[in-house]
């Protein structure tokens, strides 16, 4: 009876949208959480950030009483250690998480703890340690920026004299590859190590070189190079800068990305007119068109299972996010806004997709909950951001 309203909601949603995708660990049922009042002298900021983080997720519902909850969280501090104890109210089973030291890097610690709690409660991957990179105008030149999922830890990664665009972050969240325009013409691909902040040149040429993303093992990047006549897809080792041409065509090609299936990548091409999504089997070079809608289809992002992908589809002048399986079944229009969505990223937790939109004055970074199609605005930036990527 207690779950009746959620059941009705889900049934209603299924009937309206025709939603059929089986997400790994869907956990459509919200978990009820009771958090004890925080009593320690220090650590309030971590406590409030964790509460704020968990409250925004549709599958975590805060309960007013312990008895009505599935899980209870109590937090306290001792010396330089912050403790969080998660208890399963029904079974009494409990888990303790310790942050030490906790007084510095408050937001990172809060995000880390939020993920630990979320993962234990839902048995799915957390999302709060996600790193987001994007390009934004800064005093007349576009630079690369990094932030966390709360938008509270902004960092300007580049200080280049010419425009820097299209950053992509590695799966292990350590590296960022981006494109820098050279003076005159041509572009360079550069790599930033987020641990050391070293910014090294990978290659430069007269073509437009644009990274699509990292390969599954993070040892190389997939990028496209086009000179106006021919588009070429390469895999480029970030260790020794060795590049391997995977595909070439006279069509326009962008966004080479991993499908998370070994030996298979995806990309966007207008080989047959409007842009569509294709896959390339690297060993036998076999190319297969996977998107079958006749419209404008770009910006693919695959689930880590490799079974489904999200993409941007343009219809009636608006760019919305769609999700579908590789064989074209389980097709769902995920967003219905009049705004334009850009660069969807299917997070490792397969329930959520990260995207952004902008109007004339600001950009909004949005978390989309797939089962409920709820849009959660994570943060706004009072400027136009572009080329967002996240992991």
């Amino acid at each position: 009876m207690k779950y009746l309203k959620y059941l009705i909601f889900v049934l209603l949603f299924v009937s309206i949208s025709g939603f059929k995708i089986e997400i790994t660990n869907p956990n459509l049922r919200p978990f009820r959480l009771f958090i004890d009042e925080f009593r320690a002298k220090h650590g309030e900021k971590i406590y409030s950030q964790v509460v704020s983080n968990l409250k925004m997720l549709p599958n975590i519902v805060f309960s007013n009483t312990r008895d009505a909850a599935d899980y209870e969280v109590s937090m306290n501090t001792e010396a330089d250690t912050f403790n969080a104890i998660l208890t399963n109210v029904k079974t009494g089973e409990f888990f303790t998480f310790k942050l030490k030291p906790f007084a510095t890097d408050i937001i990172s610690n809060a995000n880390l703890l939020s993920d630990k709690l979320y993962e234990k409660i839902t048995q799915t991957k957390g999302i709060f340690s996600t790193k987001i990179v994007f390009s934004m105008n800064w005093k007349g030149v576009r630079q690369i920026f990094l932030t966390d999922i709360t938008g509270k830890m902004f960092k300007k990664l580049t200080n280049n004299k010419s425009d820097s665009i299209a950053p992509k972050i590695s799966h292990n969240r350590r590296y960022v590859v981006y494109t820098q325009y050279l003076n005159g013409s041509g572009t360079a691909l550069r790599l930033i190590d987020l641990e050391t902040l070293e910014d090294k040149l990978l290659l430069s040429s007269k073509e437009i070189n644009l990274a699509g993303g990292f390969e599954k093992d993070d040892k190389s990047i997939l990028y496209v190079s086009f000179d106006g006549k021919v588009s070429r897809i390469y895999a480029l080792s970030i260790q020794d800068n060795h590049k391997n041409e995977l595909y070439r065509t006279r069509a326009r090609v962008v966004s080479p990305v991993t499908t998370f299936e070994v030996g298979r990548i995806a990309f966007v091409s207008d080989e047959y007119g409007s842009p569509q999504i294709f896959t390339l089997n690297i060993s036998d070079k076999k190319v297969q068109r996977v998107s079958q809608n006749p419209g404008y289809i770009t910006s693919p992002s695959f689930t880590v299972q490799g079974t489904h992908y999200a993409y941007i589809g343009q219809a009636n002048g608006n760019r919305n996010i769609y999700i579908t399986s590789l064989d074209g079944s389980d097709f769902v229009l995920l967003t219905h806004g009049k705004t334009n969505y850009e660069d969807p990223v299917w997070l490792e937790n397969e329930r959520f997709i990260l995207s952004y939109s902008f109007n004339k004055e600001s950009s909004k970074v949005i978390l989309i909950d797939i089962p409920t199609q709820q849009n959660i605005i994570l943060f706004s930036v009072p400027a136009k951001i572009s080329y967002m990527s996240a992991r």
Partner: protein
Amino acid sequence: MKKFILFFLLLILVACAKPAIEAPKVQNEPVLNGKEEAVLKDAIDNKAKTDKSNLEELQGLKKLSPEDITPDMIANAQHALSDATIEKGALAKMIHFDFDSYELTAEAKQVLDEVAKYLNEYKTLRIVIEGHCDERGTREYNLALGMKRAEVAKKYLSDLGIAESRLEIVSYGKDKPLIEGSGEEVWSKNRRDQFRRIQ
């Protein structure tokens, strides 16, 4: 103080809605010819008349305090100025394309003929052809389209006898619109090739 000056600069540039036209006049060097200037003025005026949200935006800007100015607004204002002062003569002209197309129109070929004549006059001059797109479509795909647009202009000039070594190409996709906004009037201006000399 610096922010205050930037604030007033921004108000003058944006609220008056014609910075790209007025800025070069200060230098007494017409960057746009009379016809181009009229077209641009018309586009901006039409946009202001027909786009209600744009009007609201302009009214909103008047209420801004220096603290409200974002790096993006400053960058756009600077970009509008730099675009207006890039080139003069034949190189100040642009060629325009149909939606999602990189085919040269008859008008575009006329402009390229003038550019070729100019390059034949100044034999040591090297230029970059910049391909641009309108706001529709995704950024990365538009970068590819912009490169195609730049390449067709390069090929046309090359066929007219201009050495390829004097012609570089680059694409900015939809990242550097000539005019901010939406609607075919604006989009048609933004789908363009621009020319820039290599210093």
